[in-house]
C-alpha cells in the first residue's frame, strides 16, 4: 500500500517524464520579474502561438528564471534526443524561425545559441556546455536548484526533482529535536542580514508547548539591489513552502505566514498558488502526509514600508498595525505574533532547509567556509557586464565574483565602488575587493553581505551623490517612532544634499558624524542604529573624494547642473 507521499511521487515522475522523456520537445522560457522586465511575456506568447500555428510537436512552459539576467529573455529547447540548446536575448519575432528550424527540422540554430547541455556534444558544433560558462560553473545551486528547470506553478514538477522528500523524511523518520539538531549541525546562519545561527533560533522556539505558535517567513525584501527573496518565491515557491513547513514541524508550531509586500505580484501569486496546491494534496492542513502533524499557512501582505522587514515591525504588520519595531525583550520566541511564541526567518534561510534535511547537515557544512557554511545568493547589478542572480559557495572573494562571474565593468574603465548588502551597509572601494564573501570575513572588513545585493559603480560614480541616494532612502523609510532616526536621517540628508550642491559648511563632517552617533545610541531598531554605516564606510574608502567635495572641488552631480536631485517629498506622519 503506497504511502501518500509515494503516490504523489509516482504522479510527479510521470508528469516530469511527459515533459522530458516523451516525443515532444520542451520549450522553456525564463520568467520571473526580471524576465518580465526584459519582455519574456511577449516571447512566451509568441512561442506558444507559433507552436500552435505550425502544429509543432512541443510543450511550451514559462519556467523559473535561471538567473543569467544578461541573457534574458532566455529560451531553451530540449529535444527528445536529450540535447538541450539555450538561446539568449530572444525577440518575439524569432519564434517562427527557431521553432521551424530547431523543433520541426531538428536543426538547432548553433550560431544563434549560446550553450547546450545533455547529449555528448557531437551534435552541437562548437557551442560551449552550459556548465562550462563562468556564470554557471562557479555556482553551487542549492536554494536555486530548480531555477530554469521547472514551472514554478507546477507542484508535481517540484516533487519530481526531489521536492518534499525532506518533509516526508522529517515527518516519518525524525523528531522535531532531531531536525533542530541537524540545522544546528549544518551551520546554517540566517540570510536576512543578521547571520544568527538558524538552528539556535529554532531551538529557542521549539521547547514551548503553547497551543498556538508561529513561524514567519520574511519576504519584505525592501533593500534596493536585492531580488533573491522574491526571486526564490517567484521561481521556485515550493522550496520555501517546504522549508517553512519543516521549520513549523521542528519547532512544534501551528501556523506559518509568508510575508510579502503588496504590488510584487509574481511572488505573491506564486506563493498563493503553491500554498493552495499543497493544501489540495495534503502537504498542508490537518495530518500532513498522513502524519500527526497539522500546519496552516497563508500569505500575509504588507503595505509599502521598508521597516516592515525588521522582525518585530513585521509582526506588527501581520497584526494589521503600523510597521514600527517593538522593544526586545520580550524576544519573539517568548512573545511574538499576537504575543505567542514566534520565529522569523528570511526566505533564503528557509529555502536551504529541504536540501539540508534531504542530504544531511554534513553535506551542507562541507560547502562554504569554516565559519559560514553553504552558499551566498548574490544579486549583481549596476555597471557590471553580466548582471544576474548567482548562488556561489561562501568563501569566493568579491573580486572573483566581479571578474570571473560578473565579467568586470560593463561601461567605463574600472569598478570604483560597490554598494553591498543594502542601504544600511557600506560603500566599498577597491581595497576591499579581495575580501572573502563570508559573514565573519566581511564583518572584519567593515562590510556585510546583508541581503546579497551588490550594486556596481564605475569610475564615473560620484560617491557623495550615491550616499545621498542611500540616505534619502533611509530617511524616506524611517517609520518615525524614534526621533534620532527620523530627524537624524533628515539632517544627514540635508547635509549630503548641501555637499552635492557645493554648499557644504566646514562643520558638516563633524556634524554628520555626531548625528550618526546619536542615531546609533537612540534608535530602537537597525534602521536608525545602522543609518550612519554607508557614510562611515565611504569615509574609510573614499575619504579623499569626500574631502574634495567638502572643499567644493568636485563637479556637481545630477541632471540639473546645480547638484540637486529629484526625491519624493512625502514623509511618514
Amino acid at each position: 500500500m503506497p504511502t501518500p507521499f509515494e503516490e504523489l511521487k509516482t504522479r510527479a515522475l510521470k508528469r516530469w517524464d511527459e515533459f522530458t522523456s516523451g516525443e515532444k520537445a520542451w520549450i522553456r522560457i525564463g520568467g520571473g520579474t526580471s524576465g518580465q522586465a526584459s519582455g519574456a511575456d511577449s516571447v512566451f506568447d509568441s512561442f506558444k502561438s507559433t507552436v500552435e500555428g505550425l502544429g509543432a510537436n512541443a510543450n511550451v512552459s514559462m519556467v523559473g528564471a535561471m538567473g543569467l539576467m544578461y541573457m534574458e529573455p532566455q529560451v531553451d529547447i530540449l529535444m527528445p534526443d536529450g540535447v538541450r540548446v539555450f538561446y539568449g536575448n530572444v525577440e518575439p519575432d524569432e519564434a517562427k524561425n527557431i521553432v521551424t528550424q530547431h523543433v520541426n527540422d531538428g536543426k538547432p540554430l548553433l550560431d544563434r545559441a549560446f550553450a547546450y547541455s545533455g547529449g555528448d556534444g557531437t551534435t552541437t558544433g562548437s557551442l560551449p556546455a552550459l556548465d562550462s560558462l563562468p556564470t554557471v560553473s562557479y555556482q553551487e545551486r542549492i536554494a536555486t536548484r530548480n531555477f530554469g528547470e521547472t514551472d514554478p506553478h507546477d507542484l508535481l514538477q517540484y516533487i519530481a526533482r526531489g521536492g518534499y522528500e525532506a518533509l516526508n523524511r522529517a515527518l516519518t523518520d525524525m523528531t522535531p529535536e532531531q531536525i533542530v539538531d541537524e540545522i544546528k549541525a549544518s551551520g546554517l546562519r540566517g540570510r536576512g542580514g543578521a547571520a544568527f545561527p538558524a538552528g539556535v533560533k529554532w531551538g529557542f522556539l521549539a521547547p514551548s508547548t503553547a497551543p498556538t505558535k508561529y513561524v514567519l517567513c520574511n519576504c519584505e525584501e525592501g533593500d534596493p539591489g536585492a531580488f533573491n527573496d522574491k526571486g526564490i518565491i517567484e521561481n521556485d515557491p515550493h522550496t520555501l513552502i517546504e522549508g517553512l513547513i519543516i521549520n513549523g514541524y521542528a519547532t512544534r508550531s501551528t501556523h506559518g505566514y509568508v510575508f510579502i509586500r503588496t504590488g510584487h505580484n509574481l511572488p505573491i501569486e506564486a506563493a498563493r498558488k503553491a500554498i493552495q496546491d499543497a493544501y489540495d494534496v495534503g502537504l498542508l492542513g490537518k495530518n500532513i502526509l498522513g502524519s500527526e502533524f497539522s500546519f496552516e499557512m497563508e500569505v500575509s501582505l504588507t503595505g509599502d514600508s521598508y521597516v516592515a522587514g525588521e522582525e518585530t515591525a513585521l509582526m506588527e504588520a501581520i497584526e494589521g498595525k503600523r510597521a514600527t519595531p517593538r522593544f526586545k525583550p520580550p524576544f519573539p520566541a517568548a512573545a511574538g505574533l499576537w504575543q505567542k511564541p514566534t520565529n522569523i526567518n528570511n526566505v533564503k534561510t528557509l529555502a536551504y532547509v529541504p536540501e539540508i534535511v534531504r542530504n544531511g547537515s554534513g553535506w551542507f557544512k562541507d560547502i562554504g567556509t569554516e565559519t559560514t557554511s553553504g552558499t551566498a545568493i548574490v544579486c549583481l547589478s549596476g555597471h557590471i557586464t553580466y548582471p544576474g542572480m548567482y548562488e556561489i559557495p561562501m568563501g569566493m572573494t568579491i573580486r572573483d565574483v566581479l571578474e570571473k562571474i560578473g565579467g568586470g565593468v560593463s561601461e567605463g574603465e574600472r569598478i570604483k565602488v560597490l554598494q553591498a548588502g543594502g542601504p544600511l551597509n557600506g560603500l566599498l572601494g577597491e581595497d576591499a575587493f579581495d575580501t572573502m564573501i563570508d559573514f565573519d570575513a566581511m564583518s572584519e572588513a567593515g562590510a556585510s553581505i546583508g541581503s546579497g545585493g551588490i550594486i556596481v559603480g564605475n569610475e564615473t560614480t560620484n560617491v557623495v551623490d550615491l550616499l545621498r541616494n542611500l540616505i534619502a532612502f533611509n530617511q524616506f523609510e524611517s517609520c518615525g517612532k524614534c526621533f534620532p532616526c527620523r530627524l537624524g536621517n533628515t539632517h544627514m540628508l540635508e547635509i549630503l544634499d548641501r555637499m552635492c550642491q557645493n554648499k557644504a559648511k566646514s562643520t558638516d563632517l563633524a556634524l554628520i558624524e555626531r548625528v550618526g552617533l546619536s542615531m546609533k545610541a537612540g534608535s530602537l531598531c537597525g534602521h536608525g542604529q545602522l543609518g550612519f554605516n554607508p557614510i562611515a564606510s565611504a569615509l574609510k574608502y573614499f575619504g579623499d573624494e569626500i574631502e574634495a567635495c567638502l572643499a567644493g572641488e568636485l563637479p556637481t552631480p545630477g541632471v540639473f547642473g546645480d547638484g540637486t536631485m529629484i526625491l519624493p517629498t512625502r514623509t511618514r506622519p
Partner: protein
Amino acid sequence: MTTADTKQSSALRVEIQQILSAQQQPTITILSSLLAVQDSMHYLPEEAIKETARFTGETTNEVWSVASFYTNFRFTPPGEKTLDVCWGPSCHLLGAQSILESVHSTLEVSEESESPDGKVTLKYNTCLGACAQGPCIAIDHRVFGKQTPETATKIAMDLRGLKS
C-alpha cells in the same frame, strides 16, 4: 451635503462592505482590509476608513493610523494608469534621474502627482525588484527594464494618448 452626495456615499459604502467581506485569507486585519479596498478601487475613499473600522471592530483612529503609515495608500482617485519610476541606487547609477526628468516633462508634473489630463499618476518607487534589468519603470505594477529617457518619454506619451 446634497442627496446626490449621500447617495454616492451609500453606494460606495456598499461596494466597500462587499470588498471587505470578500477577503479570502484566514487572517483579516485593518491592514489586510485597507489593502483589499485599494486593490479593488485603487484608492481609499473616506468611507473606507469608517467601513474598515466597523468591519474590524476597531476605531477610525486606529484605521487612519494604519492608512497614513504605508506609502502605497492614497486618498484620491489615481489617474487611469500608474507609472512607477525606480529611484533606487542601482537604477540611479544607470540613469534614473534623467528618466525622471524626461517623465516629469512629458507628464507635465514636477513631483509625484497626476498629469493634468488625469490619465497618468506618477510615483517614485524605491525598488521594483528587477535591478539586473535597470533602469526600471512599471505600469500598473508590470515592470519594464532597460529604460532610457527616450523610451520612458515614449511610454509616458503613449499613456497620455499622445503621438510621439
